[in-house]
C-alpha cells in the first residue's frame, strides 16, 4: 500500500487512521483509529446497519469478528511497519457479552512475533473497559 510504503521510506510509523480510511470495508463499518498508550485504539460508533439481531438489538457477530480482526491487522501493520496488509491464517473469536447498540472500542497486542507469522490477541469493549464483549486470538502472515 502506498501510504505504508511512504511511511517506511520516511522512517516513521504509519498513521493508523489513514490506514483504516484506505480499507473500504472498515470505512463501510464506520471505524476510526488513534494511537493511545503506545498501541492502536479503534472506535466504531453505533449504526443501524451493524445490528444482527433486531429483537435485542445486538451487534452482528460478524461485525464483532470484523472489528477484532481489523484491530489485529492494524496493530501488526503499525508495529512491524509492514509494507502490505497481513494475511489472516486463523482466528478464534470468543463472544463474551452481547454487543449493545452503543460505541464499541478495540485494541490488540502482538503476543509473539516470528519472522513470517505473528500471534495477536485483540479485545472489544463498550461502556466498561474491564468488561470485554469479545476477544480474538489469531495468526497473521506478514507479507514483504
Amino acid at each position, binding site marked *: 500500500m502506498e501510504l505504508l510504503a511512504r511511511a517506511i521510506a520516511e522512517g516513521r510509523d504509519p498513521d493508523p487512521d489513514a490506514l483504516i480510511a484506505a480499507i473500504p470495508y472498515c470505512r463501510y463499518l464506520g471505524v476510526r483509529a488513534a494511537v493511545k498508550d503506545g498501541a492502536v485504539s479503534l472506535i466504531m460508533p453505533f449504526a443501524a446497519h451493524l445490528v444482527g439481531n433486531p*429483537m435485542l438489538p445486538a451487534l452482528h457477530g460478524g461485525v464483532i469478528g470484523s472489528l477484532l480482526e481489523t484491530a489485529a491487522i492494524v496493530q501488526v501493520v503499525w508495529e512491524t511497519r509492514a509494507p502490505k496488509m497481513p494475511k489472516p491464517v486463523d482466528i478464534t473469536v470468543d463472544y463474551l457479552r452481547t454487543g449493545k447498540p452503543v460505541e464499541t472500542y478495540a485494541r490488540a497486542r502482538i503476543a509473539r512475533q516470528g519472522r513470517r507469522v505473528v500471534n495477536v490477541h485483540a479485545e472489544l469493549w463498550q461502556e466498561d473497559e474491564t468488561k470485554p464483549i469479545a476477544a480474538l486470538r489469531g495468526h497473521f502472515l506478514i507479507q514483504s
Partner: protein
Amino acid sequence: MTDNWFDRLKDIGRHIGQTAYIAGLKGEVLEITSTGKARMRMPYGPDLVGDPDTGVVHGGVITGMLDHTCGMSVTGALRTPMPIATLDLRIDYMKPAVPGQDIFAEAECVKVGHDVAFVRGLAHQDSREEPIALCTGAFMLIRGGYQMPPAAE
C-alpha cells in the same frame, strides 16, 4: 417432511431467496433445512474490500458470512424456535477469496445439546472442494427466550 410446523416451514423452502444481512451487506439465503444445513451467497462488491492493493475481501466478511450461516444451520436443526447467540467461532483461512467473484458459505449443525449447539462450516467460490475458509463454532441456545420489556399500557 415432518408433522412439526417449525420444520415444515423450513422444508417448503420458505427461506430460499431471502436477504441475509451481514452488517447491512446483502447476501442471499440459498437453503435452510430441518436436518441442520444452511447455505448463503454474497455477491462481490466494493464495500467488501479489505486490501485495497489486491481487492481481496476483508476477513471480517468471511467471518460474518460463516457466523450467519452457522447460526442459520442451528435454527434449522432446532425443533422449536428460540433465540441463539454465538459462543465462539474458529476460522482457518485456506486461501484469499478471488476478487470479483461471489462467495458462498455453508454450515452444518452437528449437535444440538440442551444448552449448546455445535457447528462446522466452510466458505468457497468455484468449488467446495477448494474452500477459502473452514470453521467450527458453538452457539448458546436461549431456551427461555429473551426477557421482552413489558407492553405499554
